[in-house]
């Protein structure tokens, strides 16, 4: 199934990637997705999923352990206190 150019552009936008002049990607993405059509032939519709499990006992005990380093210094920071974000409007 060929996915339309518009749809790919739309998804790129949702994934927050400017495509602008990157239209060369579109043809290639179309080909890649088209290859996935082979999955229709696998005949696995009724297959149950196998999922990894773990016992409750494996989980972390609820204990407060402060992180030793001042991590904000190692991030892009604003006045050594905050991370700054662009305008939200």
């Amino acid at each position, binding site marked *: 199934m060929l996915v339309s150019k518009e749809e790919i552009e739309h998804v790129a936008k949702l994934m927050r990637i400017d495509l602008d002049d990157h239209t060369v990607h579109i043809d290639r993405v179309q080909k*890649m997705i088209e*290859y*996935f059509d082979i999955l229709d032939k696998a005949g696995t519709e009724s297959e149950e999923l196998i999922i990894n499990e773990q016992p409750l006992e494996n989980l972390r005990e609820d204990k407060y352990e402060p992180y030793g380093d001042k*991590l904000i210094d190692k991030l892009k920071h604003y006045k050594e206190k905050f991370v700054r974000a662009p305008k939200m409007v």
Partner: protein
Amino acid sequence: MNLGISALDYIEAIKNGEFTVEEFVSETFDQIKKVDGKLHAYLSLNDKALDQAKELDKKRKAKEKIGSCMGMPIAIKDNICVKGAKTTCASKMLEKYTAPFDATVIARLRKQDALFIGKTNLDEFAMGTTTEFSVYGPSKNPWNQEYVPGGSSGGSAVAVSALESVVSLGSDTGGSVRNPASFCSIVGLKPTYGLVSRYGLISYANSIEQIGPMARTVKDTAFLLNVISGIDPNDNTTIDNHGEDYLKNIDSGIDGKKIGIISEMVGKGTDNTVSSATKKALAKFEDLGAKCEEIPIDMVDYSVASYYTITSTEAGSNLARYDNLRYGFDFDLEGYEFNSYISKARRSFGPEVTRRLIIGGFVPSAGHAGKYFLKALKVKSRLTKEINAAFKKVDFLVAPTVPILPFKFGEKLDDPVAMFLIDFNTVTANLTGKPAISVPFEISNGLPIGIQIIADSMQEKSLFQAAYALESTTNLPKVPL
């Protein structure tokens, strides 16, 4: 000094005082200076390595307790976090990123006195099979520099192959350890999912990938696994292996074992040279007392489509955090609104990552999950059942690691489906969580061919025995440097 020494012999030599860590490391850096300009295995080097080497030598002289990896030079793929070292994933996105913590595997190696030489090249965020998608340019195959070294852990394979390190770590999401190991004629293991902690491995497709050891010998690979494997409270998906020693009885042989050849992996699409090498390998196995039979695994034909659907979906989510707000590269946010800023920042992803992220937004989306993502998961489950059934009949499954020989740069770049199919023989182990190893078997017209052996979950010990047995039948030429 023999830079081609095995890790186990090296550690013995250091302990016996035959030479010092400083001497060896210094010579290793000379080698890097000599060859890496052309080969480009490394993205960054540990500038404190010589000081650390001296410290280790002092420790030995003072008869302090020394670790099992005493002074062992190791190269680390640049998607594994080493505290205080730049960790770029070969992406502009993490151009300025320094990891503030050690990955669990790094902490374990550090504790055993391993010596980190540097961070190695990869396809951006480990998406690729040639290193051509590294934003810093590709690595070259030491066997023939016009050829790709394989990927995505290409730099780690080149470093070991070209004597720029004794051993290395890679990561394997769909063959990224085994493929370059095969192309560069070294040994590479993809462990059972959960055997090695992923804490500190920068996720690409977290549900199927593993960090894997790479070395010039099977024994060194087993030794490395001893150090890095085992349960980790920082990774909920890890399994307890009760401190298994993978080196012990590695020479037990494979007399009486049963080997299955996956029909789909030796059929159409397999290069003739690779085919005949595989046949020779099977003959060797039979000489060693194993019994070989062909086993069809129906789902293998759908495995690559399943693999790319699942990995793209997970990548789409795992790489969402790269919005350049908390870390990344320099790009002023003044004048931008949130969405326009991050959309512009995320243009810094290279072409292959960009494409896979778009696919990763498409295949699990509300309107398409049923056709793509859910079907991919179901293929993965059925494939697992088929492989489990196969292991009721045989001890190992064998196939060429890569169905084709190493190829020249640019040769496959234009055809995405051709690139998909390079992974045809390796993704099954990832989708099913099974351990798989690539063993160098032949050099054909100067190009390496590796044989892949797959074992059942947590059967690394017998997997190494089979790999060691196969390795013992070979006598391969030295890399032409």
